[in-house]
């Protein structure tokens, strides 16, 4: 039986484990071990050795990030922030962990905070996740009562407070530095980097921002070790990963599988293949801001570097399937409209480029397209590309567009030639 450390105690049909129930199955063992037997530096080195890569989408080494935090005494206060602002279209993995096992996340936050010697942690939670909010508050009060949070935790002299900040909307809050501005009560506009958050973050203090899935691993890794973690995956990147599929498949859902599993296995064995009467045309492997992959790529292994080699990004690992009865132009219009709406408006290529792209896609889909529109769209993918914008928002929006224009070129041309959407009768 394959190990599923993150989800083995999650049953969406029943409430999450209480603190006592979670302790009975070994929960919080990593917290006890870290705080009582290890120095902060040893915890960071262990996480570094495990090769845990950030599960929020960027895939940066978690231990390396922690290692950049200054550890001198005068560097306090410091902050640990859990990014629970899941809002990438097509992504529903953090919701599952937040609702299903909040204690696993809290244990991870305690160990991570200890490693960087933060005495305050914030959970930046998506407003829409009401059930997660209720469960988190319940779990936090249990953890305070049991002495895992508050002053002098487990008699070790270490103090930590965890605060839940429920957001007020906007996708850009998921961007690390925009999130920090939002936590400071400001408009969520990304900051200039450098300086990076690890030295100059929340309230100008050293801060680490980690994703829910990343933090959910930490207590397990401390308890069972770096080699155990590495052994869970089929590639050199350690661990399992939550993979999801949505769209016209037989069994849409979420599964914890080893990193390195092929797209085909996820799609065919777990999601059950396409629904009767629907054909596969392509997929976005990790949310709306990742490049399309097509049939040729079904044997690509789901891991950060292997998906990158195939010309896309693993992103959040939750795939969106494009079927043959959904118009690819309409699909892209939906995505680009989202990015246009969610642009913070600070830098020009993003603020102006995205609505322009949306207008052109709407024109093409409604039968008013011209061939030169395709050149404008292509230009926009470069104009909004990396290096021209203040953050990764517009470059992310350009990814599905550039690959969509390439793989579905004939569909674009048909819209323009027929002056209508071929999917509409």
């Amino acid at each position: 039986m394959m190990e599923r450390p993150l989800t083995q105690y999650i049953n969406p049909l029943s409430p999450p484990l209480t603190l006592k129930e979670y302790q009975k199955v070994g929960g919080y063992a990593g917290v006890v071990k870290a705080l009582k037997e290890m120095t902060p530096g040893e915890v960071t080195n262990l996480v570094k050795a495990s090769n845990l890569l950030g599960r929020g989408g960027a895939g940066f080494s978690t231990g390396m990030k922690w290692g950049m935090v200054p550890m001198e005494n005068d560097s306090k206060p410091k902050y640990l922030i859990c990014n629970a602002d899941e809002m990438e279209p097509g992504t529903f993995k953090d919701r599952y962990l937040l609702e299903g096992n909040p204690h696993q996340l809290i244990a991870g936050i305690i160990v991570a905070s200890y490693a960087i010697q933060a005495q305050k942690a914030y959970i930046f939670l998506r407003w829409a996740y009401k059930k997660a909010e209720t469960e988190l508050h319940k779990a936090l009060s249990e953890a305070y009562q049991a002495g895992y949070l508050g002053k002098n935790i487990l008699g070790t002299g270490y103090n930590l407070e965890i605060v839940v900040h429920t957001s007020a909307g906007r996708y850009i809050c998921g961007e690390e530095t925009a999130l920090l501005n939002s936590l400071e009560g400001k408009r969520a506009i990304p900051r200039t980097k450098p300086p990076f958050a690890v030295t100059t973050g929340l309230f100008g203090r050293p801060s680490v921002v980690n994703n829910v899935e990343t933090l959910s691993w930490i207590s397990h890794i401390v308890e069972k070790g770096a080699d155990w973690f590495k052994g869970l995956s089929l590639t050199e990147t350690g661990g399992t990963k939550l993979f999801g599929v949505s769209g016209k498949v037989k069994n849409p859902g979420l599964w914890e599988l080893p990193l390195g599993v092929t797209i085909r296995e996820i799609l065919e064995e777990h999601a059950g293949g396409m629904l009767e009467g629907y054909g596969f045309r392509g997929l976005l492997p990790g949310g709306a801001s990742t490049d399309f992959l097509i049939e040729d790529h079904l044997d690509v292994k789901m891991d950060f570097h292997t998906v990158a080699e195939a010309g896309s990004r693993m992103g959040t690992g939750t795939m969106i399937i494009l079927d043959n009865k959904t118009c690819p132009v309409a699909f892209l219009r939906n995505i680009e409209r989202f990015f246009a709406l969610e642009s913070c408006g600070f830098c020009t290529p993003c603020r102006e480029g995205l609505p322009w792209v949306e207008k052109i896609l709407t024109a093409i889909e409604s039968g008013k397209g011209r061939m030169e529109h395709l050149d404008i769209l292509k230009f926009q993918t470069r104009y909004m590309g990396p290096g021209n914008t203040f953050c990764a928002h517009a470059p992310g929006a350009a990814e599905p567009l550039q690959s969509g224009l390439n793989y579905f070129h004939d569909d674009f041309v048909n819209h323009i030639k027929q002056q209508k959407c071929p999917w509409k009768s």
Partner: protein
Amino acid sequence: MLSEEEKTEILKEVKQYPYPSAACIDALKIVQEHRGWVSDEAVKDIAQFLHLSNEDVDGVATFYSRIYRKPVGRNIILICDGISCMIMGYETIYEYISKKLSIQFGQTTSDNRYTLLPVSCLGDCDHAPAMMINNDHFNKLTLDKVDEILEKYK
């Protein structure tokens, strides 16, 4: 003027941060919870209380999609228009609700019972199409189900 209740709740949030202005978003949410939406008057009240300018608070209020700067109905219907919900047919759900209530996105029924708004991906893509009404979440929507759900919100 902020009510005593609003002040107490805002002060509780202020304690979570090193300085009061950091609680600006929490304050906006608290006032909205009490008054239904955030009026110009409410912006001024919060600014004064947190030692910010009116423009600062308005800048924050207008940035976030879940802060309402216009009056809304008693119940807010949020239909997910994310990509997975589009593939699974949110447009049919929207058209049905829109016709049934005679309002479009951004509008409120004349009896003030419902406001209809689109919302970005609700993170329930494997059970699409999804929507929220107030704080309640609904998924795998069908037209029959929608009728039943809407009835519950008076």
